[in-house]
């Protein structure tokens, strides 16, 4: 068992995810069987193998740099338009700093 109660709770906390007791039970079983399956990668010797983070591009093909020029994108009204709680031109969030 790679993952038990404590690991699922810890990871859920890292991911800012509240999960129910029922989900926790289900995930422990399923995640362990997935991780067990993934274990087979360890049978390969990758000592001298470079990792691949992305394909196709080479360093010489880095076309992504451009001039950093200011341009008009979205108005404040548009940008706030999808906000679930908005006031006075800001996104509203619950209190971040606790009162003493």
């Amino acid at each position, binding site marked *: 068992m790679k993952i038990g109660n404590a690991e699922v709770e810890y990871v*859920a906390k890292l991911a800012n995810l509240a999960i129910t007791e029922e*989900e926790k039970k289900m995930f422990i079983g399923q*995640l362990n069987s997935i991780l067990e399956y993934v274990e*087979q990668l360890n049978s390969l010797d990758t000592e001298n*193998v470079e990792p691949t983070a992305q*394909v196709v*591009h080479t360093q010489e093909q880095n076309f992504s740099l*451009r001039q950093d020029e200011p341009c008009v994108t979205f108005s404040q009204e548009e940008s706030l338009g999808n906000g679930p*709680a908005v006031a006075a031109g800001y996104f509203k*969030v619950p209190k971040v700093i606790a009162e003493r």
Partner: protein
Amino acid sequence: MEFDNLTAGQIKSLIERGDASAVEICSHYIANVQREDPKIKAYLHTSFEKARQQAARIDELKKAGASLPRLAGLPMAIKDNILVKGLRSTCGSKILENFIALYNATVVEKLEAEGALFLGKANLDEFAMGSSTENSAFFPTRNPHGLEHVPGGSSGGSAAAVASHMTVAALGSDTGGSIRQPASLCGVVGLKPTYSRVSRYGLVAFGSSLDQIGPIARSVEDVARVLGVIAGKDPHDATSLDLPVPDYLTGIANSVQGVTIGLPKEYFGAGISPDVKDKLQAGLKLLEALGCRMAEIELPHTDFAIATYYVIAMAEASSNLARFDGVRYGLRVSGEGNLSGMYRETRDAGFGTEVKRRIVLGTFVLSSGYYDAYYLKAQKVRTLIKQDFEKAFQKVDFIISPTSPTTAFRIGEKSSDPLAMYLSDIFTITANLVGVPGISIPCGKTPAGLPVGMQILGKHFDEQRMLNLAYAFEQAGGFDL
């Protein structure tokens, strides 16, 4: 009915000759959606008003005697993880249920400029995570060839809409087979372009080193036509490459005499259902009759592909989905009055089970102490898989396999066993790991009436010759084997 089987080229000609108006064609497809979609449920939401306005603009152009754009009057469905300005873009998730897109994805911008009509947004597995469209937070889509069967996924709404004539073409996205597998299960054509061929700006990110947007249609020609419009460098997507975009229709009808096709011996072992195997063998015979040469090849790391893929895809997904926090858009659940409680409760209420499972696993493999053992290991094995393909493509022009080891399974059949669902992606995921283009084309139906798909994988940026081969197969009757 008379408009049901038109291709994009035929639609444009009809409008050019004045034999039909774009508005008439649009209305025909709207009527098809209204008649068929209550059964199929391919659309999450429709945008008929927008489509009618787009059609009216085409008719005005025609009236003014102007030349018509490349996709004039082409009805399209857009997968709901691709942004269309002013329309909801839910990604099949409760967390984005009321999210309205502020801008057009680059592909959408290009399609609109070339005269396409957007009928609506197509259903998908939540955030494109799934192979059956059962993970949509709103409802499952059904397979037009058997309503008790899944359409495949995650672009199941797009493929089902095309297959049931509720649109002529559609856009999907493909992270591990999400265009090709539903195209296969629904009996239509779906193409995943080379990584970096098509801009992802405006596609809600899932696995950033794997994702590509691509077309789904009923003919190879339509897929080629749409690809020609959406491909190319985009300053908004740093991963898109500045390579010339060919006219994919040029040379599409060339002879395929002498083309070499690799058949990976690892792919044709156990695991392929007998009726899929039968159809594929018939398809390969047909290609031989067209002058293609078959060669057995080896992809020795095939057995490790699924494990590699899921570690990488889940890790990238867990990072990409961190942005959904209830602050700037989407759902918010207040929690216990503090910020972290709000994050947790929002994400708990907003994400479905499969998404949570992947976030938990992805976070685990990236977490301190496990990163090297899982994520880095998978990236190294990815290199080995890439080398397998490089070696194979020195010997052959294309690699062919079934798209999916089985035909469409029944709704509910695999939903309780995530690993079984992942294993069915064996033939499609490698193209994403390696970045090569792939197309799924119909290859007949089983006696039960369910479509079989043939997958052709090509070399990086070799879409043109891949489409040529697919077209030759289609013209020789391969779709109806």
